[in-house]
């Protein structure tokens, strides 16, 4: 035992879990009990306990995405008690610990809900729409080799720091799940503003924002109504300021654009 909280007692919980065999099939909430859950367990370790139990009983374990369990890969994506990644602010599901829950509690666990994120199975969804948005322009067009020395272009520290903050987006999709319109504006704006802030990204700034926004619309994400649930639920604290930067970049691009489409 970690000894972090010597008084913490194991908990018994009721889980209401979304089960859906595949994208085509319909799904439903199924109730399970898990017992003797240590408060020092992570939420996903609690689900491991459930899955080992189901497997022993010959039942299909609950499918969910996860990998690094350090809050950085962006794989885990659970909608817990109606909130992206659960009740703790600034935390991915894998870093949420059971000490945030209490003995006897009922916990509802669903996948992200968005048209642009179809369910693969149970709690696993298809977020390839995010990749296609990046492919539409979320890069600087440089080939390997022949680049100038890293110190050739000084970048003011505060600009570099702001670009870094935007670049820390983990692409988990919590912002989409938190938004009543299932908008991807926070995700898209984080990449747009990272590259718009840096001199390396400014060369293609106009086409980038136009193409990424167009792709976002094609993928079926909803419109942004500037309520800010996305930023409130973002596990890594991506700021709403990025959406303002995106809007500015987008308007500038439209004014000077040659793209009549």
């Amino acid at each position, binding site marked *: *035992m*970690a*000894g*972090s909280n*010597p008084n913490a007692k194991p908990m018994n919980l009721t889980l209401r879990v979304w089960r859906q*065999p*595949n994208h085509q099939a319909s799904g439903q909430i199924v109730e399970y009990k898990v017992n003797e859950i*240590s408060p*020092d*367990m992570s939420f996903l*370790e609690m689900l*491991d*306990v459930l*899955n*080992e139990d189901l*497997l*022993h009983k*010959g039942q299909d374990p609950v*499918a969910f995405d*996860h*990998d*690094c*369990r*350090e*809050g*950085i*890969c962006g*794989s885990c994506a659970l909608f817990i008690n109606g909130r992206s990644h659960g009740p*703790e602010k*600034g*935390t991915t599901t894998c870093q949420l*610990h059971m000490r945030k829950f209490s003995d006897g509690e009922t916990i509802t666990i669903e996948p992200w809900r968005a048209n642009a994120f179809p369910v*693969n*199975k149970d709690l696993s969804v298809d*977020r*390839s729409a995010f*990749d296609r948005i*990046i*492919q539409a322009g*979320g*890069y*600087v*067009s*440089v*080939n*390997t*080799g022949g680049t100038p020395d*890293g110190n050739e272009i*000084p*970048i003011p*520290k505060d600009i*570099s720091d702001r670009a*870094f903050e935007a*670049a*820390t987006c983990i*692409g988990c999709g919590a912002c989409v799940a938190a938004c009543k319109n299932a908008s991807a504006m926070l995700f898209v704006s984080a990449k747009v503003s*990272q*590259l718009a802030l*840096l001199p*390396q990204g400014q060369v293609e700034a106009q086409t980038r924002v136009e193409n990424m926004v167009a792709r976002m619309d094609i993928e079926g994400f909803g419109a942004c109504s500037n309520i800010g649930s996305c930023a409130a639920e973002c596990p890594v604290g991506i700021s709403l300021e990025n959406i303002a930067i995106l809007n500015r970049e987008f308007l500038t691009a439209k004014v000077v654009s040659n793209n009549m489409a």
Partner: protein
Amino acid sequence: MALNSKAPEGPLAEKWDKHKFNVKLVNPANKRKYDVIVVGTGLAGASAAASLAELGYNVKAFTYHDSPRRAHSIAAQGGVNAAKNYQNDGDSVFRLFYDTIKGGDYRSREANVYRLAQVSVNIIDQCVAQGVPFAREYGGLLANRSFGGAQVSRTFYARGQTGQQLLLGAYSALSRQIAYGKVKMYTRSELLDVVVVDGQARGIVTRNLITGETQTHAAHAVVLATGGYGNVFYLSTNAMYCNATAAWRAHKKGAYFANPCFTQIHPTCIPVSGDYQSKLTLMSESLRNDGRVWVPKTKEMAERVRNNEVKPQDVQEDDRDYFLERKYPAFGNLVPRDVASRNAKQMCDEGRGVGSTGLAVYLDFSEIIKRTSAEAVSQKYGNLFAMYEKITDENPYERPMRIYPAVHYTMGGLWVDYNLQTTIPGLYATGECNFSDHGANRLGASALMQGLADGYFVIPSTIGDYLAATPPKPVTTDHPAFAEAKAGVQARVEQLLSIKGNRTPDEFHKKLGHLMWEYCGMARNAEGLKFAKAEIAKLRKEFWQDVKVVGSGEEMNQALEKAGRVADFLELGELMVDDALDRNESCGGHFREEYATEEGEAKRDDDHYAYVAAWEYTGDNQPERLNKEELVFENVKLTQRSYK
């Protein structure tokens, strides 16, 4: 087979340039006639796939993740080394080369390591041009910090998320090539076999993890960038999906596996807290720049701390033993990882460990906080401190962190020559998947450097040498070897599903991990290794009689995926033990208790073991054959490593 490293002759500093001139080139117009498969989209894979596509090759890239951006490179924290000498502190390509060879305890190939140091400077330029937001000074130039095993400041970083920023840079380059149609990206596709036609690698067999469909893919060459095998130990800092299957399947098709026993135990991880634990979390080595490692001076004081009678922050200076500073005054808390880990274990073995299990030492930031401020510390390490608090429920600004060594990286891997080609012609291995650059111990901030060096700068030059000698005719999956490999993969899936035993894949994995950690971990001895070998063989037999997987192969089935990976770990684990038994010396991360200096440091035997052990698969349940690549040192003098 005689192992030819193909390292070029001539002076060290000229080898790579000379080699680039001597390798055959593929005519630019012909490049589009060649297909290259790249498996894995971490730093080594994404950079290779993007760079090869930029050159004009048709690339098919594969990942088992839902997106190429999720590869475990993303979790690397501390930084990336480069011999830029921006700090004017005496760094050079030769010094980075020397530090890496010495840090690896003289068990790596000189020519490869020198090339790595040479291209390190290009990596930084490339990443900056992609828009990677490295840390900067107020004047706008790039910032550096120092890292374990080095006395210069050459590590470039992006707070504690350097791997994330570098990977997103490589992912953006890859995404651009996907958009251009030069890379066809296959996500949620797991490699389950390598196809060899007439002795050449010609393709792979994959399983779609959503539909369960088995697919075959052909190409003129195959690059494996599938990472390391640290998860053999069950608990490690690796991500949950990290596995050895791609490398192991290639091994069984003829690729030699080099130095499998060289695993890195990282000194600064959050200690194990319970049996349910699924993985361990690293606290970046960069923390050792500012944190001081200590345990109570006496067993009695340690016991009082363990029982919460005394808070660690209230232990007087006189009652603390800053054991790394005491034993290694020159390097202090910045000794290499293997040395720091062994010393932490030694303190705990002496009964001076802390935490309720006694298996932890302190990493203390009170002095730097006093000297600067909590805010300054947060600027540097904020995300790491927050992560520590989330996991342990303790505030590291007030109370020293508890840390303990954990499996972190595997220096061993597929044997490759100077071109990064394995012993199967046409099959390449890059990044952690190969064995090439880190010897018996990897220095901090060198994994990112190697992954990107291989992918951006080495493989794009060396793969041409092979392809130029291959006719640019279209490749197909018509050859019977594809059907045969596919049938083999499907039969194995069916077999796993048909056993219907009583124990889950995780239960077998945990048991294997325990054996590996106890007998083939931080310290090893012949007796323990022999015991582990017998136990692993027994466990493997039980696995194929008693593993339990439900459902079918034609659906998303995570237990089935896991079972396949555990089956391969059970074979690789035994080879690691064999390798550790063969190597009757201590070097780097391989510490055989029988071979230690009087001061308890690793004692190498250069007369008998200055070789790469490259193991050759000879058939199911047959002993593997040992092939040796003798290591030749022309530019460094082999000495007992000293960090005192």
